[in-house]
């Protein structure tokens, strides 16, 4: 039988994969994709508890998370394009303009 435990574990696994992607990769596109993975993990959590508690609130907040993900993707990709126009690279280690 599938319990909420299964869903929470799956969500934790996806979230950790997203964190590993953000921490280890140097390509900014893959970092943005890893952030999307983490948001999906959060959504699985919200909907698992929505199903367990028989309340629709979790699903409503999952809709908001998807909205924020869409806004984040739009702004993030805008930054990527602006960055590529200036430095012709997708490597985050070369983007150190604001590093002290």
């Amino acid at each position, binding site marked *: 039988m599938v*319990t909420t435990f299964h869903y929470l574990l799956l969500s934790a696994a996806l979230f950790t994969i997203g964190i590993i992607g953000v921490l280890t990769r140097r*390509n900014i*596109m893959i970092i*943005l994709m890893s952030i999307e993975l983490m948001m999906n993990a959060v959504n699985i959590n919200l909907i698992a508890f929505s*199903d367990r508690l028989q309340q629709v609130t979790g699903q*409503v907040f999952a809709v908001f998370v998807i909205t*924020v993900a869409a806004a984040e993707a739009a*702004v993030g990709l805008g930054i990527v*394009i602006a960055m590529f126009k200036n430095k012709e690279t997708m490597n985050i280690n070369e983007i150190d303009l604001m590093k002290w």
Partner: protein
Amino acid sequence: MLELVLFYIFAAIAVVSAILVITQRNVVHSAAFLGATLFAVAGIFLTLHAEFLAGVQVIVYVGGILVLFVFVIMLISVERAEHERQYNRQWTVALVTSGMLIAEIAYGLYRGKDSFVLPPAVVPPAVAATGNSELVATALYTSYLLPFEIASILLLVAIVGAVVLAKKRTAAEE
């Protein structure tokens, strides 16, 4: 039983493609595997009786965000990034700390496992008759109307921000 089989199929697809997303050298392949993960997560939503969210996941994530990603990948050149080093120098530290994080979460979840056992789904007759989309819509437009409006403002700000970031500088600004 069917539920368990479906869960394991979708979970395996989601986790394996997620790992492939962060290990591919070519960004286009990463985007394709991200699509597989998103579809599998939509399937997970279906097993959780969230049909509306599964539809939104496919339409907004796969149809919107992922296409936007692929569009941007096509605008910038990917060849150079393929021949560079793919991982940061601190990748060992990152792997160790992430492994500790997942171990900690899994241990905590395992300790509280018994409190997560789903009670046999008691769906009130009214809920069973209305359906998922109506329930979400009712909650969204009554109890959560203000967050809904704030989300629309957020989207407007994101649109303006994306346009400002990506547009060409005019001669007057330079």
